[in-house]
């Protein structure tokens, strides 16, 4: 089944669809009808798509790029390879298929599309081979795109590691969606995200992590620094399958509200079909620590500068636990300017 047919089946996103609970769905133009705000490129028909079956895909954002004839870029990283790469899509709609071989070490930075239209949607299908170590990250400069979707489908084989880290500073409406399947024993997935939003920006993250094998680990940390009337949401679901013993999963969302009109929504969902698992989730919302502010200011540092120091510290802490790799370097560098 192709993507257009599937969108017709599931319909446009609605608030009562559990995948879209917090998203301002009214802002999404009807991509199936007239051209409207949403450009339909005269891109050549995508051959790769013919072979793909989307009949089980439920997330509109995962279907959109393909429904819009995104060109598919296929990249295979051979077994044992050591690769640093940058991915960039040159169109409003993009589709990247990455096949990462066994034991490969990959550092992958995703750059923004150059085009500026009303809506941009990208999809990434990433399959990670046994024992591979992969980091995927993006920390692009703030974009003013009105609407941006980025969808990831990651499948991990045994003993593979994926670290997925991002900094989100866009001024429009954005959504990161992720379906991660930990299919092999010993696989681990680490998600870290920092949203620094101001004005009317709204950023939404929706993750589904499926622990389909024993001894799998997933961690999620999302931090939000919200000013103006910014709005962030985090919808994280962890599913632990029936025979999956010794699973460890943690989810933590920390938000600092810097203004009265900023807000955050968090929805953690755990579906566990086994006893022998350890799953935690936490959610904190607060302001900058008053005692820390006092300490800095009482040493002569002006209030605004002290605020910035505390915000920067809150932001940087998101990525401190990462190993010393290009991702960590780049993410922290972005935060120190």
């Amino acid at each position, binding site marked *: 089944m192709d993507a257009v047919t599937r969108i017709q089946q599931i319909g446009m996103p609605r608030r009562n669809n559990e995948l879209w609970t917090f998203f301002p769905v009214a802002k999404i133009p009807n991509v199936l009808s007239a051209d409207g705000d949403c450009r339909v490129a005269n891109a050549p028909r995508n051959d790769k798509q013919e072979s793909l079956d989307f009949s089980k895909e439920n997330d509109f954002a995962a279907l959109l790029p393909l429904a819009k004839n995104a060109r598919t870029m296929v990249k295979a990283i051979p077994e044992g390879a050591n690769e640093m790469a940058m991915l960039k899509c040159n169109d409003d709609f993009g589709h990247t298929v990455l096949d990462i071989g066994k034991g490969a070490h990959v550092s992958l930075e995703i750059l923004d599309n150059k085009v500026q239209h009303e809506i941009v949607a990208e999809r990434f299908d990433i399959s990670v081979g046994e024992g591979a170590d992969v980091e995927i990250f993006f920390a692009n400069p703030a974009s003013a795109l009105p609407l941006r979707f980025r969808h990831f489908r990651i499948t991990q084989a045994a003993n593979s590691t994926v670290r997925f880290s991002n900094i989100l500073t866009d001024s429009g409406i954005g959504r990161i969606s992720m379906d991660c399947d930990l299919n092999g024993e010993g696989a681990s997935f680490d998600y870290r995200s920092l949203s620094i939003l101001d004005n009317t920006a709204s950023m939404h993250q929706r993750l589904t992590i499926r622990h389909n094998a024993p001894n799998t680990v997933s961690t999620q940390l999302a931090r939000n620094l919200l000013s103006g009337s910014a709005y962030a949401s985090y919808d994280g679901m962890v599913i632990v399958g029936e025979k999956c013993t010794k699973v460890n999963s943690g989810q933590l969302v920390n938000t600092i509200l810097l203004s009265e009109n900023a807000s955050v929504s968090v929805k953690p969902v755990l579906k566990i079909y086994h006893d022998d698992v350890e799953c935690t989730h936490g959610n904190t919302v607060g302001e900058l620590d*008053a*005692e*820390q502010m*006092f*300490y*800095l*200011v*009482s*040493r*002569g*540092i*002006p*209030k605004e*500068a002290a605020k910035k*120091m*505390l915000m*920067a*510290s*809150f932001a*940087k*802490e998101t990525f401190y636990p990462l190993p010393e790799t290009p991702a960590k370097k780049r993410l922290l560098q972005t935060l120190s300017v």
Partner: protein
Amino acid sequence: MLSIKDLKASIEDGTQILKGINLEVKPGEVHAIMGPNGSGKSTLSKVIAGHPAYKVDGGSVELDGKNLLEMEINERANSGLFISTQYPTEIPGVNNVEFLKMALNSKRAYLGLPEIGDEEFKKFCEEKMQLLEMDERYRERGVNDGMSGGEKKRNEILQMAILDPKVSFLDETDSGLDIDALRIVANGINHIMSPEKAVILVTHYQRLLDYIKPTYVHVLRHGKIILSGGPELALKLEEQGYDWIEE
């Protein structure tokens, strides 16, 4: 140089903690403030610093003729006031050295001086760290992050050494220090001290005053200074406690 007159202050629920404090501190003097727990010693330091948890009900605090109570918190510091609180706050994500540099440059900016460069600051900071026998680890850590009580106190004196304040108010800086650390910290304070500066020490112990000889010793109780004397008063307090003093 520091003149506190009839200072009254209360906490949020309206309870008055400071009930009319008077204290005149002149250049070159060391004042020790003693008194039972809960008397208001820490409150006094925080009210002078401008901590938002306290409301000033009356009185004045002047530093070289300028009313501190009307200044922003950072201006007080930049005018030459240094307050070391009893329990220094931990700020894990802010690097200690960057913090020190930021604080020094804030003061310099306030005084119309140019920023101190990285190299120059590094040398300057190194000198002060040697004075306080602090090892390199203090550089990499976050402000007071995971430090023991004693390490925090030493870090406070490092800040004092770098900011070179006119008046320092050190709240129980000697608590939690072992004998070696006490000697180092006291030497540090003596080193920073000069005839143009003044220090107020809150302490429960004579042992600090063996190193730093006070000009005056005051007893603060129930929000008031109820007795003042010379260094001999501290010795008497250590022997006899506070109960013999009539309020």
